[in-house]
């Protein structure tokens, strides 16, 4: 029962951010580049959450930030899951030599700092939303691949896989019938965690000025810009921080809840 509460809470939190991101596509209180407000205004009737030091509306920028967070999270997770999942499955099925090689490659990639990787990607492609997604997605792929490899190997060692082989089931069908259903609950929880980490990683990139360039206002950039005026205009720093936490906590709760719904062994007996 408590599980159900967590799941609902997760859905509510994530939907909140998704809705804000969707609304920002059609409507924001002010145009993104509008600088007509006063500098560092406090929350008020005209600018609900106040303005930044260039006179831009904070709520507008937060809404656009939600869009970027969702895009980075979803994009990086999609890229990481696809590349990582495939590489992990390949390694699980590979012979000893190929498996060892892949495992070593993954270890190197995981040891490689994400930020350094991001800087390389930015250096190659320029700072953009796409670069951020590619950099974070690649780093994530290595982690997802290693996890997929271990999980898939565990499933492949089970007798029910041997039974499937002696039943004449082909390898691709064994993957879809047994391997994926048995690894995805663990994988999806991990991907949700990665979604949260991707959003945080993008915030760090933007904070360092490696993220999507202005007028794209990611939450990390907002935090960085509000840093110097945190004492005089605290809302500018607190609001993006709160939103980051809401999104990250939300996806984690959602993932935990999903795993329980998806797993028949966790359901109560009749």
């Amino acid at each position, binding site marked *: 029962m408590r599980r159900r509460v967590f799941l609902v809470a997760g859905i509510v939190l994530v939907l909140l951010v998704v809705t804000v991101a969707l609304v920002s596509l059609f409507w924001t209180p002010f145009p993104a580049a509008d600088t007509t407000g006063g500098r560092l205004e406090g929350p008020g009737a005209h600018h609900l959450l106040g303005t930044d030091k260039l006179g831009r509306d904070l709520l507008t920028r937060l809404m656009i930030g939600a869009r970027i967070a969702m895009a980075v999270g979803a994009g990086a997770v999609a890229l990481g899951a696809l590349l990582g999942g495939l590489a992990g499955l390949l390694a699980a099925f590979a012979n000893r030599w190929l498996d060892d090689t892949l495992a070593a490659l993954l270890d190197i990639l995981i040891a490689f700092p994400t930020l350094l990787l991001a800087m390389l990607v930015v250096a190659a492609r320029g700072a953009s939303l796409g670069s951020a997604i590619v950099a974070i997605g690649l780093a994530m792929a290595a982690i997802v691949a290693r996890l997929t490899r271990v999980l898939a190997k565990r499933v492949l060692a*089970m*007798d*029910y896989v*041997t*039974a499937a082989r002696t*039943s*004449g089931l082909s390898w691709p069908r064994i993957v879809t019938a047994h391997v994926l259903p*048995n690894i995805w609950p663990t994988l999806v929880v991990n991907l949700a965690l990665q979604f949260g980490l991707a959003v945080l990683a993008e915030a760090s990139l933007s904070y360092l000025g490696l993220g999507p360039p202005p007028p794209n206002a990611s939450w990390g950039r907002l935090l960085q810009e509000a840093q110097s005026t945190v004492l005089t205009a605290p809302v500018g720093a607190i609001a993006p921080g709160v939103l980051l936490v809401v999104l990250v906590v939300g996806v984690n709760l959602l993932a935990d809840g999903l795993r329980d719904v998806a*797993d028949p062994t966790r359901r109560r007996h009749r």
Partner: protein
Amino acid sequence: MILEARSVGFRYADGAPVLDDVSFGVTAGRSVALVGESAAGKTTLLRLLLGLRRPTSGTVLFSGRPLPTRHRAAQPFRRQVQTVFQDPYSSLDPRQQVSRIVGEPLRALGFTDQAPRVAAALDAVGLPADAAERYPHEFSGGQRQRIAIARAIAVEPTVLLADEPVSALDVSTKVRIIDLLAELRATRGLTLVMVSHDLAAVASLCDETVVLERGRVVEQGPTREVLGSPRDAYTRRLIASIPRLPS
């Protein structure tokens, strides 16, 4: 001979031989036990008989022909030979409903009348029809082994290869599963190849016995002779080791 091993040997690239010059066969409708303890090579031999691995020397023959190795070519063989494993926990996918588990060989081998065959198989192993919609974790060890047996007989194979099918079960459950296997053999004319270290199960189910020690056959013949008057020293020790009830 429906299934036959001819001078079968197996060794890993970097190790000592697991199996060395193993020969035996089973005629259709008969039953044979492969008996031995850990490291005897029983499980490896079973995998060779199933065509999951290829012997490094010698051949495995099904109906007089070498086992096909390619997936498609192996389908007719799969239709004839099905398996039951020791551990009724790891042998059933925890995320699949029983109907899906039992129906897997039917789907894989392209049967069209799956639902009635699943129902018939569940009925044959003594499970209620409503078992089909449930998941493995809702069943006891013995019931799970019945599900595994239902999966094996769903395609009505001619040969059942069983890897320690009763070793993980409680005594009273063990007796019931032995009875079930004996009944299936009698009613369907199934050929049974059973790997086991449980000599009581072997004596109850198998016409013939092959004793393996460290990858070699040390003795083989009718079960009554092999277990009743063993000639080999290892077989004698094995039999003497079985704890018996006080009379």
